[in-house]
């Protein structure tokens, strides 16, 4: 067993790969969600939904970036980044919503609902494509990338 304070992790970062894939899926799904909430709440609903999707994407990117860079320092530092990153990212979302809550284009209900739906929806969607194996720790390989012998 090695020490968590001195063990560093180099090489490809699976969380970065996951987040890139999630952003690609968000780009596909966002127009549909924006259209639905736009029909219900009008232009403010559509704009609020876009803002919320952007917030969730930024949240995922920040989480992955913090973990990737801290893992190069040490495993323990990655733990610190994950724990405090959680608090910092919650504060960022809180501040981002507080800053715009009185703007004309903000509808709080679609904003809040989109934050939850997008966050959970992207995660559940991504879970179908995750491969937690030693050979492929990120996404499942496509058949042309990997041919079993």
């Amino acid at each position, binding site marked *: *067993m*090695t*020490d*968590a304070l001195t*063990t560093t*992790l180099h*090489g*490809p*970062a*699976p*969380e970065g790969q*996951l987040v890139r894939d999630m952003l690609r899926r968000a780009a596909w799904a966002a127009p549909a969600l924006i259209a639905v909430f736009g029909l219900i709440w009008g232009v403010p609903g559509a704009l609020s939904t876009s803002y919320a999707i952007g917030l969730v994407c930024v949240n*995922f990117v920040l*989480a*992955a970036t913090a*973990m990737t860079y801290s*893992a190069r320092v040490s*495993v*323990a530092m*990655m*733990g610190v980044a*994950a*724990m405090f990153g*959680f*608090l910092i*990212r*919650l504060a960022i*979302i*809180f501040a981002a*919503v507080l800053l715009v*809550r009185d703007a004309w284009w903000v509808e*709080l*209900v679609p*904003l*809040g*609902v989109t*934050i*939850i739906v997008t*966050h*959970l929806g992207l*995660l559940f969607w*991504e*879970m179908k494509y*995750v491969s*937690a*194996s*030693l050979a492929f*720790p*990120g996404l499942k390989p496509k058949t042309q990338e990997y041919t079993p012998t």
Partner: protein
Amino acid sequence: MSTLSTLGIIAQETAQNAADVKAAAAAQSAGYAYGLAAIGPGIGIGYLVGQSVQAMARQPEAAGMVRTTMFLGIAFTEALALIGFVVFILLKFV
């Protein structure tokens, strides 16, 4: 006449006080919702990350697999705090 106007003023003040009390109660409930919603995920993420760090330190060759699971676990746990946050903004501002 003066008794009636005094009663009217008292009624107005009482209504104002009731509105203030209601607003204060909503703010207090929103604060509790957000605070309580952050405690559980905080404990969850702490436990999850602690165990993952231990696993990665024990077996660095499995770090990629553990990181994938940890990242998804953190994101799912964080969703609980986000739900609390949405309840907070709905209670406080809507």
